[in-house]
């Protein structure tokens, strides 16, 4: 929209000039929040770095079978031949990173590690997120006694610091499997997501567009699903990216405490670092350094992205 009414009287070339000038200025100005956020993300180097790391990680994870030279659980005679409890053979033909403590191809295990780590991280995050969001929505939307109960519940969970809760859960699970670890790490995040969602729900219940919708007589669940949830989700997404990093770190910590995934055939970085890496540190430090580095990188990637998304969405940084 431009004041063409006024400039209509102008000579054509002048009018055209004016119109294009206006066009230029307005295009620089008002843009939608999301597009604007996206713009700022791309301009933000940290975001780009984070995204790049994650992308690489995903690619490796997805195409592990194609990238990896060998089967990660197979034991190779040429490696076991001079493998002893206090000597682990290094790089040899066909095994760029040499052997692991059981004569398996370490390089392949590192590569498949991406896959397993992704699996653990994603599942832990998703489960935590779904349960959390569900609780949060219910609490936030229904309010009243339900809200009270849910909040007490999260209180109980939050009363135990994250890793402690995970440890306890694993201990209480008696049988230790990969799933106990995933669940434990997931449950830890439930209250966080729940509170997050409840918070933004409550905030929105009073917000104009919801009030408007209510005034128009839109059904409650429609309001919740169509109007409130979408607006809360951005926050949830940010939290999720950050949670992922925490999840894989916690998984590693559990392995270190001997409470992690007991199946050492499974190539998962946390497991590799927490068990073999530490035990054989002096025999072959790479067994610790590589998984550790991988974990740090990925955790870093997700943190970077999460933080910069949050920053980008923060209205304070617009203009």
């Amino acid at each position, binding site marked *: 929209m431009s004041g063409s009414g006024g400039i209509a009287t102008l000579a054509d070339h002048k009018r055209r000039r004016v119109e294009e000038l206006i066009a230029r200025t307005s295009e620089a100005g008002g843009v939608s929040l999301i597009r604007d956020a996206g713009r700022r993300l791309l301009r933000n180097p940290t975001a780009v770095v984070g995204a790049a790391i994650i992308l690489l990680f995903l690619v490796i994870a997805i195409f592990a079978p194609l990238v990896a030279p060998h089967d990660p659980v197979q034991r190779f005679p040429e490696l*076991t031949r001079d493998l*002893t*409890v206090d000597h682990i053979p290094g790089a040899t033909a066909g095994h760029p990173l040499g052997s692991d403590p059981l004569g398996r191809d370490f390089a392949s295990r590192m590569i498949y590690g991406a896959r397993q780590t992704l699996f653990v991280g994603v599942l832990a995050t998703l489960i935590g997120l779904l349960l959390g969001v569900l609780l949060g929505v219910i609490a936030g939307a229904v309010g009243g006694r339900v809200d009270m109960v849910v909040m007490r519940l999260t209180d109980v969970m939050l009363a135990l610091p994250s890793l402690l809760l995970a440890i306890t859960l694993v*201990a209480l699970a*008696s049988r230790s*499997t990969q799933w106990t670890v995933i669940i434990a790490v997931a449950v830890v995040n439930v209250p966080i997501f729940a509170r997050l969602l409840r918070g933004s729900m409550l905030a929105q219940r009073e917000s104009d567009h919801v009030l408007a919708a209510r005034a128009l007589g839109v059904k409650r669940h429609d309001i919740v699903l169509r109007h409130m949830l979408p607006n809360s989700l951005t926050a949830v997404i940010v939290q999720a990216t950050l949670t992922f990093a925490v999840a894989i770190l916690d998984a590693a910590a559990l392995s270190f405490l001997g409470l992690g995934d007991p199946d*050492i055939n499974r190539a998962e970085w946390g497991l590799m670092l927490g068990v073999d890496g530490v035990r054989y540190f002096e025999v072959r430090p790479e067994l610790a350094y590589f998984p550790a580095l991988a974990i740090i990188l990925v955790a870093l990637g997700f943190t970077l992205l999460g933080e910069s998304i949050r920053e980008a969405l923060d209205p304070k940084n617009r203009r």
Partner: protein
Amino acid sequence: MNTMRASEMQAGRRRAVIAAGVVAALSIGMVGCAKSDRDSGNEGKAAGGTFIFAGAGDPKNFDPIFNDDGESFRPIRQLYDTLVTHKPGTAELTGGLAESWSNDPTGKVWTFKLRQGVKFHDGTALDATAVCANFDRWYNMKGEAAQSQMIYYTDVFGGFAGSPDAVYDNCMAQDAGTAVVTMKKYKGAFPGAFALTAFSIASPAAMKQYGSDTVTQNGDSFSYSAFANEHPTGTGAFTFGGWNKATGEITLNKNPDYWGDKAKVDKMIIKVIKDENTRKQELRAGTVQAIDFPAPADRKALANEGYKVLDRPAFNILYLGINQKNNPKLKDLRVRQAIAYALNRAQLVQTKGPGGSAVADQFLPNTVLGYAPDVQKYEYSVDKAKQLLSEAGATGLTLNFYYPTEVSRPYMPNPQEIFTVLANDLQAAGIKVNGVPRPWNGGFKDDVQQFGKQDLHILGWTGDYNDPGNFVGTFFGRPKVEFGDQSMADMFTAIGKADATVDQAAKKAAFEQVNRDLATKWLPAVPIWHAPPAVVTTKNVEGLVPSPLTAEQFNTVSLTK
């Protein structure tokens, strides 16, 4: 809700400032101390005559009869003596508090000639009455709480006063120097079992004074007497100096009037460090002079750095247990043999065995009576395995393989790795393996020994005394859920007979036959390896003699400058 006055605000700010100051000071202080203290730290090193030994776990208490684990026995062995003991570095019996002992033809009556002039730490004399007092104490122990904690006693002596299967009858003090112990029936365990640390002789006076027999149950556990915790009183080479639980230090002082070789160090501290890696690092840092159970992976490195790596002669066994109950196919000997052939034990020993470990072809080390050199060996052969399986019509067999987590035992330093390797071998021979991990105390022992849920499992044993009964007897002497109840009655009877044989030569022959049959006829389990646990000391530690029973006596240890 009163609002804050401006003056308070000031105060608040002042507080903040002070806090900040303290913070700064402290953090600086720390670094400062870090520097200033490095030297004084190193002084702690070879402090005169103090020998610091890093153990792997907390003891329970110091009353011998209520204990059954090595970490409790280590200090107890220094504080007490047994009637019969082992020659240093071996499992051979020799005189302890008893200079000599004899056994009547029925094998039921044991006569001990006691050493003269031996005194307990409280000054009272060790004589026949004192010895009998100990035997009677054990036999007449009251209360389920106390009885349930006397693991070795129930195992060896069958039961308590009034129980039908109790082995002990009475103890007579013939004279001050002669104690005569009479059993209701012969038991092969003796005399070896008399050397068990659990059956150390304690001062009756002290036990009376400190109410040694009061074991009280509280919640899910038990608390023990002042005798067991603060005033353990025996005849040992060291006297009790105290147990600092906050730092995990047990202090033992030289006993100047010890009847045997007096301790060469004035003081010994047993420092509890649970993590094997940390034990090694403390050794390197020079804060301890010896560490128990080094990580197998570290032995070579430590040896190269000039530390003394002392191997204990292997006196343990790791086996692959086979439970015949759940899967009928396993009742077929050929299937069990196939499993034996399928396992590449040589490779396992080479790749995962702690230094000095060796493939086991029977369930007891060659130092033990009844070891048969000519048992069937089951050399690794996938083909034989496959062939046997197909003969037995057991191709495509799937087995539940239970293995423990959250545990490390001398015979099983790293269960997960061992399982992974074995499973791998079995898979190669066409046996599908379904691995089931269980926490050691969180279900493994239950599932395997109580409910027998498994088809296969790995477990092991460290011998207590030199007797085949203590090995094969414990495993296969009676029906056990672990290997599938009631199966193979002939095995039980054969072992029972061998165990009951009084004449040593005959007993030897009998057990040799048992071992041969275990390998060829019964094969209830597959022996994997004997893995000697080690002790590592600094160069300046002399005279530490590693014992196959991990029963080291530290009075012989000296520190050279």
